[in-house]
């Protein structure tokens, strides 16, 4: 099984005619994602040319796309100035799962977008995230399909390329994945570690979980407590930013240590205190997963 999305998920791409949107739509379609519609205001009525001669109808609004195609998930590839509004448009059209890849959205815009999504019961993944991939089934976002393979490991991460690094080792060591979720590097994200852990707990095919955290905030600490109270399968952790100085933003808007909270040491301790083994190097993640699964 997979979490949040599967091969039946019907996807509308917001910003389908843009540079990133068009490239990644073709990648997603080539992987097998059911992309049923695209939205670009002012370009409704056209067809988007996908791979292998397939095409996707383009609409002016998400509501039109949903009404005509039954899309139930969206991927947002629109620029930061309009991305929060794109998320709100999708939530307003009752899209239940919204992936936002865009980086650089003003945080006050996101306070309103998250509030609307919560009211409408829509789940937002991200923003500033690589998306979600269920190996062999579907992918929403930008995670390259060729580095994953089906198997028993669930993966949750705040980072994109660090996810690739971890998945690369897992796949090479014969440890496939049920679902890999990039939850995003922004301070305000719609789907937390705990949301993903709770979905993995209900998925009988997931036998172990990898959590890749980083400095900033307290999401890892909350996740660690949740794991200890609720999860029976093994969890392996990694925390990036042990050498990060306090008060400096390390690339991700959310990766900043303020005061004593949010340090890598504190997060590592929270993991270990709650029975989560922490890899010291990215390459060690798959070693610890193999041990946890008795392989």
């Amino acid at each position: 099984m997979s979490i949040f999305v599967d091969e039946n998920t019907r996807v509308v791409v917001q910003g389908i005619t843009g540079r990133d949107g068009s490239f990644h739509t073709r990648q997603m379609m080539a992987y097998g994602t059911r992309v049923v519609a695209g939205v670009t205001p002012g370009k409704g009525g056209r067809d988007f040319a996908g791979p292998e001669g397939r095409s996707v109808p383009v609409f002016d609004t998400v509501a039109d796309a949903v009404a005509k195609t039954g899309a139930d998930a969206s991927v947002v590839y629109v620029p930061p100035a309009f991305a929060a509004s794109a998320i709100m448009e999708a939530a307003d059209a009752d899209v239940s799962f919204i992936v936002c890849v865009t980086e650089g959205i003003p945080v006050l815009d996101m306070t309103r977008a998250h509030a609307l999504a919560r009211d409408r019961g829509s789940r937002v993944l991200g923003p500033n995230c690589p998306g979600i991939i269920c190996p062999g089934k579907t992918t929403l976002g930008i995670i390259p399909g060729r580095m994953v393979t089906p198997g028993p490991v669930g993966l949750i991460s705040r980072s994109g390329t660090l996810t690739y690094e971890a998945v690369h080792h897992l796949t090479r060591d014969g440890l496939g994945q049920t679902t890999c979720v990039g939850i995003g590097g922004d301070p305000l994200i719609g789907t937390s570690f705990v949301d993903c852990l709770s979905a993995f707990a209900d998925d009988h095919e997931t036998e172990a979980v990898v959590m890749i955290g980083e400095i900033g905030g307290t999401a890892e600490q909350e996740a660690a407590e949740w794991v200890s109270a609720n999860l029976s399968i093994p969890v392996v952790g990694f925390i990036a930013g042990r050498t990060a100085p306090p008060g400096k933003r390390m690339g991700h808007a959310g990766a900043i240590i303020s005061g004593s909270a949010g340090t890598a040491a504190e997060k590592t301790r929270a993991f270990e205190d709650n029975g989560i083994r922490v890899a010291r190097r990215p390459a060690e993640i798959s070693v610890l997963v193999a041990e946890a699964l008795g392989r």
Partner: protein
Amino acid sequence: MNLHEYQAKELFRAAGMAVNPGDVADNAEGVREIAERYGGGVVVKAQVHSGGRGKAGGVKLASGPDEAAAHAEAILGMEISGLTVEKVLVCPTEEIATEAYVGVLVDREGQCPVFMVSAEGGVDIEEVAATNPDAIHKLRVDPRYGLMPHQAYRLATRLYADPALARQGAKIISQLYDAFVGNGASMAEINPLISTTGGEVKAIDAKVSIDDNELFRRPSIGALRDSGSEDGADAQAREAGLSFVKLDGNVGCCVNGAGLAMATMDLVKYYGGDPANFLDIGGSSNPDKVVAALEIITSDPAVEVILFNIFGGITRCDDVARGIVEATERIDIEVPIVIRLTGTNENLARQILADAGFTAGTSMDEVVQEAVRLAG
């Protein structure tokens, strides 16, 4: 982006807030003139992006113009947390009866603005939070409705028992929220918010951080950036669209992706080395970005080796390889370069590098160890 106190006070005044008067100068003579204009006692305050200015000796009371000029002489050019003081703010002294704290920032957990107020102001609020957390009152604000008048009043009653003071406090709290939202801030605080012996409530300090992601639509705020207080490499990185943080080590790091960049620094440390920087070249790496990254890294004389760690996903390894080759043709690089790349178009990248006399590894662990060894 952090604002100076005098800039933050301007934003507060524009929101209609009662703020104590003040004027800035960058030399002692200017400070003397300002003090003469105000008459009486003044306070001379270092304008520098650092907390603890008072403890560092950057805030001094003066009884008149001569003393103010003497303090300015001492404070201007002083270093506070490694930053040189270029300007001072001069304000008339106030007859202070009480000092409170009022701040608003974005709450990650609640995903909304949150107010924090305390009747114990004028001190480090993190210290109050640690020693006497009950003294801090919090209120989450629904961003769709904004701060409602009754909420502002309730917060003010936590600060003032006297209804006349509470009414003034509520007004200032509302104005602070307006300034926070209206300028795209991620944090705005008044510490202290004073009541005077004459029964007036006003802000005598101000601290504002602007969300960097807001700057594209707020050019007038962006213009407030104090480029003098910014390191040359920081400015160059910002202009090139690179995320860069200078560190103290000698292994220059150039990585794609923030998480992998942090993990690379950590691995350098793990193998006994010291990273010279955090640098994320971002997702789509055109050769120009790689060139800019190399210029920034090599401008640090401490750097003994340059380490590339590229995991090609969206980033194409061949783009980065071309950038490395182009950069080494354009600028003189006297330190060794070690390269790890894997992922999208890896073989093509390896060919490009081989033609230019570089070799690239595939294992992050091996390449980091090699870099640490070369750094000595």
